[in-house]
């Protein structure tokens, strides 16, 4: 049982990380030239109106004081008020986070569903045609810009075939799934190539490993050797790769969210950056950081569960 003890200690380890992220985001957003007040006012901005807004949002205070308030608010579970949307940042994030999380989740599941059979096919036919074919296909998958790929999928499946909704995020569960098929597929097509490569390598290695030889020597048919011995042993490195990639994905889904009009946190973040909505950028960064930390933790738990040798 105590192999899982790290679950208790990990959050403490990540306190400094969260602190670091709070500093980095705080400084970073303020370094970007441009002023939220001016963005808000647009072309009609006058110096007095700008000063007024800066005062309202405390932007005229010294930096360190602003940071102090930010941290103080964090401890109270608040993240300030969005300059653009005029509501509490946490509330804003909560309304936007679900689509992104679900999108990431379905993409990951889909990637795995694509990657495992592809990698299996390639590994079991190592050096033969199927292997080369998988390599070619998976390289192509990584090479197409997702905004282009996404559009092509829309044109094919939604406009020409009329099978799936063009864009947006549904309301009911079934509706949501239908809406998420294409965006997830777009992400999965590129994510799965990374996974396929890593899995394939691990599987090829696994098929040559002593464990596989030993299983064969016990008279196990090739399918048993592969699925019961090679596959479980190939999973661990891929889990970690996946964890890092999910980290990248969350918030990196901006482009997909934009193409498919998914009201997620990525779009929120990019709009916040472009409109210098400091509080939102800070808040989203903190939430995403927590999500990443959580995902790493889950990845570690899965790793520990998948490989009894691992101690953390």
């Amino acid at each position: 049982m105590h192999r899982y003890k790290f679950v208790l200690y990990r959050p403490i380890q990540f306190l400094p990380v969260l602190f670091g992220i709070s500093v980095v985001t705080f400084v970073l957003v303020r370094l970007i030239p441009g002023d939220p007040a001016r963005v808000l006012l647009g072309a009609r901005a006058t110096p007095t109106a700008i000063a007024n807004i800066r005062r309202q949002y405390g932007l005229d205070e010294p930096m360190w004081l602003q940071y102090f308030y930010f941290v103080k608010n964090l401890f109270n579970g608040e993240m300030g008020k969005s300059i653009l949307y005029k509501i509490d940042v946490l509330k804003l994030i909560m309304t936007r986070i679900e689509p992104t999380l679900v999108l990431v989740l379905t993409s990951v599941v889909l990637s795995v569903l694509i990657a495992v059979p592809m990698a299996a096919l390639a590994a079991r036919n190592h050096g033969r045609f199927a292997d080369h074919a998988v390599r070619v296909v998976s390289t192509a998958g990584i090479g197409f810009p997702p905004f282009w790929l996404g559009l092509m999928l829309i044109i094919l499946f939604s406009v020409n075939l009329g099978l799936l909704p063009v864009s947006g995020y549904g309301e009911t569960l079934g509706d949501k799934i239908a809406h998420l098929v294409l965006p997830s597929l777009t992400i999965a097509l590129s994510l799965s190539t990374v996974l396929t490569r890593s899995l394939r390598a691990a599987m090829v290695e696994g098929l040559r490993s002593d464990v596989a030889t030993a299983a064969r020597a016990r008279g196990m048919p090739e399918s048993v050797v592969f699925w019961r011995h090679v596959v479980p042993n190939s999973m661990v490195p891929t889990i970690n790769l996946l964890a890092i990639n999910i980290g990248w994905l969350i918030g990196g889904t901006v482009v997909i969210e934009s193409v498919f009009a998914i009201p997620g946190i990525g779009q929120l973040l990019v709009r916040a950056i472009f409109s210098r909505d400091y509080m939102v950028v800070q808040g989203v960064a903190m939430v995403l950081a927590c999500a990443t930390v959580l995902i790493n933790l889950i990845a570690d738990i899965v790793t520990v569960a998948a490989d009894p040798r691992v101690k953390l």
Partner: protein
Amino acid sequence: AGVLTIGRREDSTTFDPIKTAQNIDFWVFSNVYDVLIRVDKTGKVLEPGLAESWTVSDDGLTYTFKLRDAKFSDGSPITAEDAAFSLLRIRDDEGSLWSDSYQVIDTATQGDDARTLVVKLKTLSAPFLASLAMPGASILSKAGLESMGADAYAENPIASGAFTLKEWRRGDRVILEKNPNFWQADRVSLDGVEWISVPDDNTRMLNVQAGQLDAALFVPFSRVAELKKDPELVVTQDTSTREDHLLINHEHGPLAKKEVREALDMAIDKQAIVDTVTFGLGEVANSYIPKGALYHDDNALQRPYDPEKAKQMLADAGASDLTLNYVVNAGNEVDEQIAVLLQQQLAKAGVTANLQKVDPSQSWDMLIAGDYDLSVMYWTYDVIDPDQKTTFVLGHDSNMNYMTRYKNDKVKQLVADARIEMDPAKREAMYMEIQKTAKADVHWIDLYYSPFINVTRKNIENFYQNPLGRFFLEDTVKN
């Protein structure tokens, strides 16, 4: 009947009309809130809104409005108190982005009865009535706002317009439903409207093509011809007050010379921009007051495209081999296209334009700091009166004439005078004068006017946007 679904680039940010300056918000406000005085479909005439009539005192300082028998969506009557509250709020509220524009109001009070509103001005103001039509001056429920608080109201507004907010899925869509208490409720055919955010232009069009949206705003110029071919779709091009123009920093070296600016104007082939960038859908601009808007000077000076002459003029002005810093708004495909085009055109006149692509909120700072030579910007009217734009562009206010640093005291005086000139004929003459002088000074370079281009499914009727961008969804029919 039915619910109209409209795709647009971004979702609303708030329903508090005084706290935003963004068109995406304004255009929805017009569906949800009514104003005292409205702008009609042509965008040139004011017509009664919640105020069924009004009178002006002889000194021109006191306005008395007669409100009609109308109700908020919660069933309470719309009173002069609500109207006064709304006007004072946009003037005084700490969060108001518009208080400057409404400082002219001295007092706003209830008159003899609950349906009489009396507004006293500090000074004469020709654009005052027009400013009441601005969505920022929408009429809110005083009781509602005070009991709910501004923040809650902004998320769950009590409507005075044709529709009420049924649900707002932030970042995704605003769902409106018909307001049965609207005073013109029988005019409204739709059961509701959904404003849906679809940021990607292609996706938005494909949504309409696939029949998943009834309408989509901002059809890219490049897509118009193609969409027009689709028998299921109707592409509408409604006259707008949008004008795209090239700002010039008058304080930068040779640009201070009028001849140099003139040469630049002649080096630019506006027709080529219209053809290439707008695919012929726009129209070459000759004045900063858009075509079809009040006091637009149809005969304003149009400098011919003549790169050779431009080159010569530059040489004469001692500005051969001019190198200019051209700030481009990143992420705006039209801006970027114009930049690429202008760069090549200017090169023909021997001018080197170094494109500097920066994110729009940053480019604004650079313009203010004077850290630029050229930059393309555009302006769409919020009010029908030319005063707003004129003040900003030529009125020598705190924004250095739209950051061009253009200085001409005669123009400055004219702008101020026109603001308080109540005789339309005289005022028109003054605006003609302003346009002529500014154009002669090359305060900036007018590029083109472009229409609002939207697309709807064939079964949608009366989907119309007036030159200020307001949608008349109360007339729209979904078959």
